[in-house]
């Protein structure tokens, strides 16, 4: 970050400096968390895991009503079955992720051998292919069932994503994600931070923007708009569209550097967000109202 000058990034730096974010991941997390705690003093810290519901009482009521008959229950059941199904070679996902798959809090994970970010979805697919099974598609369907099951079992865990300080590649990936979060881009000149930090809680048309602190802690979700389950990958896809000629067009630049194999750039924002959310208990498998 320090080396970047160019006027396109002036805003990024300005924002980082404005919020005292200039140092490493740990200092960043403290400053980031404090910003949201100050902005939303009525929200208990761990409640930020609930996304926009943490700051919007009316939506929260609707959500809690829906939670009485969770629309993701069937997905969890199907996911449990898939999780325990034996592969042709006699093994199962449990051989990769333990008896109940309660590992959601460790993802996205830095793989220091390969020098890359691994999401839980990718790890599941790697487990499948290593055992001679077909990988799953990333956005909807079976993948949401397995991750719903594993995430549900991980509920209440605290996010425990680590960025090893002795691996410069990990730090570079982190900085890349951070830069992405704060950099204005695209025709509309939007940064994620514009909506989820600077104006978090404000209205864009009828949508209140959620605090960036807590993002990524409750996926997959059943979303009313989809009338089905989706992974964070699926959500990011619509964020690109939602931002309307926006923001995210140029994500590809960083995705080439970071996730050549993986289908998308999704881990970039999440590796940036996730360490900030450490300390927040996961509320995995949520319901998203819009």
């Amino acid at each position, binding site marked *: 970050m320090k080396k970047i000058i160019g006027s396109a990034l002036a*805003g990024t730096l300005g924002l980082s400096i404005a919020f005292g974010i200039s140092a490493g991941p740990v200092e960043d997390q403290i400053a980031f968390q404090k910003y949201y705690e100050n902005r939303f003093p009525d929200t208990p810290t761990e409640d930020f895991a609930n996304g926009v519901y943490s700051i919007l009482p009316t939506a929260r009521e609707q959500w809690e009503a829906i939670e009485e008959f969770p629309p993701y229950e069937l997905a969890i059941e199907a996911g449990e079955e898939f999780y325990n199904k034996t592969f042709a070679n006699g093994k199962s996902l449990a051989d990769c992720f333990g008896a109940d798959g309660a590992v959601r809090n460790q993802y996205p994970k830095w793989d220091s051998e390969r020098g890359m970010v691994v999401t839980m979805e990718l790890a599941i697919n790697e487990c499948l292919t290593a055992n001679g099974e077909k990988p799953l598609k990333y956005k909807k369907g079976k993948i949401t069932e397995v991750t719903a099951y594993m995430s549900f079992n991980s509920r209440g865990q605290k996010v425990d994503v680590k960025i090893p300080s002795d691996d410069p590649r990990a730090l570079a990936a982190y900085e890349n994600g951070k830069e992405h979060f704060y950099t204005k881009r695209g*025709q*509309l*000149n939007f940064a994620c931070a514009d909506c989820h930090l*600077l104006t978090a809680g*404000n*209205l864009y*048309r009828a949508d209140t923007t959620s605090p960036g602190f807590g993002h990524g802690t409750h996926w997959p979700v059943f979303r009313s708009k989809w009338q089905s389950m989706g992974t964070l990958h699926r959500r990011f896809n619509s964020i690109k569209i939602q931002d309307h000629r926006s923001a995210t067009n140029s994500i590809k630049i960083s995705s080439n550097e970071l996730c050549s194999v993986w289908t998308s750039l999704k881990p970039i924002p999440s590796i940036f967000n996730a360490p900030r959310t450490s300390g927040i208990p996961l509320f995995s498998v949520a319901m998203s109202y819009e």
Partner: protein
Amino acid sequence: MKKELLTALLASALVSPLAIADAVKQGKELAWSRKKGNCLTCHMVEGGQQTGNSGPPLMSMKARYPDKAALREQIWDPTKRNPLTNMPPFGRNKILTEAEIDQVVEYLYSL
């Protein structure tokens, strides 16, 4: 000759208020359209539905911006005044054409 000039003068005197009214109408369409200005995403405007509040309400624009050029500049590139603003640079990034921005400014002046 005299008569022709008079007709021309009359015509232009008649045309320009009409032209302005037309620009206001076009400008409103541009500002309200989700595909064009989409200003209501962030700004409350009288009569608008589902307006956001990420930007200030658009009202009394003529009184607040006696200098029309400054108002135009705010639409053309709001980052000049505030580099961190989340308002898109409609002119600089060619989201609207120069003529469209003129129409939006006329509309704002009518608010």
